[in-house]
């Protein structure tokens, strides 16, 4: 009987509290063992994990695919990370830690080598087309269109100091540059196709993986210039001004149409995802990859929700057969 006992029996003393905390701790740690044994339930439904890393340009698109797929398949856990195309290949995909790697440029030779060394095989799937957009401040009335050569002068290693050096008649003001960081596929694509040599880029710029930082910078100065994927500009057309690009055939503005028709050169670029062949052997990964390829022509999702150019039907069926071959091989 509690009432017959002295008071101290039922008082929550610090000692009791200490014991309680200790017990909770032990329970928590033991739960570790308990839960660790679970998993591996076989059911008719698709189930399993899918890990995706890579380009931050492709991230919104892959995120949208994953969200839509997840809506129909509760048992599949997808996670998506933004690591940059290079960072993803280097640290995640080729070491065999992820199932897909998104990239805003084709895989490089040294990355192929790394994957091969680790025994990771892959296929290349194009998922959309992007119009890499060069932007300036809304107040910058002096410039509407740049030729590829002028762009090169601004971004090459021995870059122009002032706008006047780029073209006669431009103001004699220093250029403020905001661009992609070196781990980014955007950086690789831009240097290769504008400057003409992969990795050749001026050092005199603010490097970032965050598009938002570029916009903030360009908004802050009349003489600033920056570049990033079309999606950001598509969703925020009023905050900065996109430049038209002249590749010899006159000025072409970046848009879903010009990128789709191939007029917007050289900055219209393919966006990729690289599934690992081994992962495609698992049914839930294969099903997700099929879903991605199937959705690449979906206007509402690719263009409407995210802001990239959907694939043409031809290109889609090409990707489809490439994927099916790989799945057959992996599961065969």
């Amino acid at each position: 009987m509690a009432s017959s006992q002295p008071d101290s029996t039922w008082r929550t003393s610090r000692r009791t509290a200490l014991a309680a905390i200790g017990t909770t701790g032990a329970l928590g740690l033991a739960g570790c063992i308990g839960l660790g044994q679970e998993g591996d339930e076989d059911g008719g439904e698709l189930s399993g994990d899918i890990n995706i890393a890579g380009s931050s340009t492709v991230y919104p698109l892959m995120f949208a695919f994953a969200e839509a797929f997840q809506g129909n398949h509760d048992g599949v856990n997808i996670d998506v990370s933004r690591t940059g195309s290079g960072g993803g290949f280097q640290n995640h995909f080729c070491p065999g830690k992820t199932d897909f790697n998104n990239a805003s440029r084709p895989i490089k030779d040294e990355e192929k080598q790394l994957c091969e060394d680790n025994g990771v095989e892959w296929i290349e799937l194009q998922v959309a087309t992007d119009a890499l957009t060069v932007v300036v401040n809304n107040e910058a009335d002096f410039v509407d269109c740049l030729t590829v050569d002028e762009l090169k002068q601004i971004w090459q290693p021995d870059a122009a100091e002032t706008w006047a050096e780029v073209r006669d008649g431009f103001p004699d003001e220093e250029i403020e540059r905001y661009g992609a960081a070196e781990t980014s596929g955007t950086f690789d694509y831009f240097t290769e196709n504008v400057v003409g040599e992969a990795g050749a880029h001026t050092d005199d710029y603010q490097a970032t993986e965050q598009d938002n930082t570029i916009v903030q910078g360009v908004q802050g100065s009349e003489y600033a210039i920056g570049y990033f994927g079309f999606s950001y500009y598509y969703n925020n057309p009023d905050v900065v001004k996109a430049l038209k690009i002249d590749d010899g055939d006159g000025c072409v503005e970046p848009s879903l149409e010009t990128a789709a028709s191939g007029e917007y050169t050289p900055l219209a670029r393919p966006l990729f995802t690289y599934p690992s062949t081994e992962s495609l052997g698992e049914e839930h990964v294969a099903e997700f990859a099929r879903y991605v390829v199937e959705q690449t022509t979906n206007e509402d999702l690719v263009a409407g929700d995210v802001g990239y150019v959907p694939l043409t039907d031809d290109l889609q069926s090409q990707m489809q057969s490439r994927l099916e071959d790989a799945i057959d091989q992996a599961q065969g």
Partner: protein
Amino acid sequence: MSVERRPSFERVARVKGTLLEYLSLGASLVGIVALAVLLVYVAVDAFDLASASHEWILTYVGTVVVPLVALFLYSADDPGLTVRVTLALGGGPIASFMAFRLLAAMGGSVPGLTWSVFYLFAFVVPTTAYVLYAGSQGPIGATAVGLLGRLLGGIAAGLALVVLFVVFDPQLWTLAYTLGVLPTGALVAFARRRESSLANRLALPVGIIGFLAATVLDGLLVFYVRTWLLYVWSVAAPVALGVGLLAARERDRREAALVGALAFAVPVAGSLAGTLVGVAPRHALLVLLTLAVPTARFVRRALDADEGALGLVAPLLLAGGAVVGTLVVQAGGFPAPDPWLDWSYVTSAPSRHPEQAGLYPAIVGSIFVICLVAVLSFVLGVGTAVFLEDYTADEGLSGTITRVIQVNVANLAAVPSVVYGLLGLGLFANMLGMGFGTVTTASLTLSLLILPITIISAQEAIRAVPDHLRQGSYAMGATRWQTTKNVVLPEALPGILTGTILALGRAIGETAPLIMIGAPTTVFSPPEGFASRVSAMPMQIYAWADAPQPEFRYGVVAAGVVTLLVVLLALNGTAILIRNRYETEV
């Protein structure tokens, strides 16, 4: 010394002292004001107050805030305060309106704020906070604050339980409770009643065996029983038993049995009623348990007390005010804001559409990881601190080694979190193979990160235990282990807990180490176990801050920040409660 050279006190300059006073005032204001402005803007974005009409804000201030303030003013019973508060709340709208008009006339504007939002944050919030504080010094206010605190705390604790059971299998807990906790408790109770040392000694082994049996059985069995029933048996029943036993200390047996029965029946019956309002009974049960039991106890005590029972109407005032306010707003057709931070935000997964986006998987992930970090860093930190303080010699070779360790622990506290992330990546993820970005890796890495802080604060707490207590214990013939267990640790517990929980506050906001160990930016479902990959709130907020759509960068991010802050405040509030409880116990 000659008499002439005595210092003359009339000529002491006060300028320096005054200057320093104002400088330090200014220095403290800079930080506080900057933080307040940031929080105001975040709150405005998260709750979409910018699109709330002036009438909407004023209506709710009138129906919800004013009655509460009146109650607390009545409690404070200070005519001067009443006049000042009336002036601030009544004159505030006029002053804000005039100020904004004046500013507009001069061609300026305050970005993102309307005069009514300004009134809300510049007048209503500080005035209410001050009145709540002043009023809670009186008995009525104290009762009101106590009741509101128990309601809020009860809901928070209930939700925390719900989240914990999302990741910890309810079935495993039920088995562990039935096979481990229950027999152990029975043995301990028996040992106390009959003073049987055999039962006492058996208790721990029985508990451990029961627990192991539970983990083994859990893998073999699948219960096809509703989770609600598991909770009734393994959560509601023991809580009711505890409540009954507590009541038995103060009342006779029959009353105590009645109290226990009520503590069982009310939440169980109430949870079934939860279906009517669309809440799952199993969740309603947990929330009602943590809500009803302390609240009922408090109400009972307040009613028994001589004064202050009037304070019990505070929740009714708030609820009634909200209802009246809603009716007025609907009748008047005032445009209401559409807050980003709402129920669906905290219960749904991330989405590409900003209005559907939610933080649920990241919230569960963060809380899960933090719970593990709490357990790990408490055990490791206290262990190290006890060893360093009480088990090492001060002199000789071992003394030198201890000092070297001391210095290194202090230095480790200053190592940047990215470095801990690298350590976690190399050690836990790669070498020990615990997986890339999994719950285990994340919680071990974060535990290491805050371990130095935990050790140092635990050491301080242990050092603060007066030495004569230890000596007294030794003089009674106690061993070192008995002294540590019975004297030092209980004395130092409040300090240790405070230090640990404040350190957890740092861990929950960390992003860099999580990026390093490869924690995914986005997951669509909460972690299901220790090997699941997990995302955390700051990771998801960081990703949203760079989303192409502006709605993400403003509304959704702000809502995430507010959620993170609320969880953090709940953690720190718990720390303060625990500390106060054990400090007054001495």
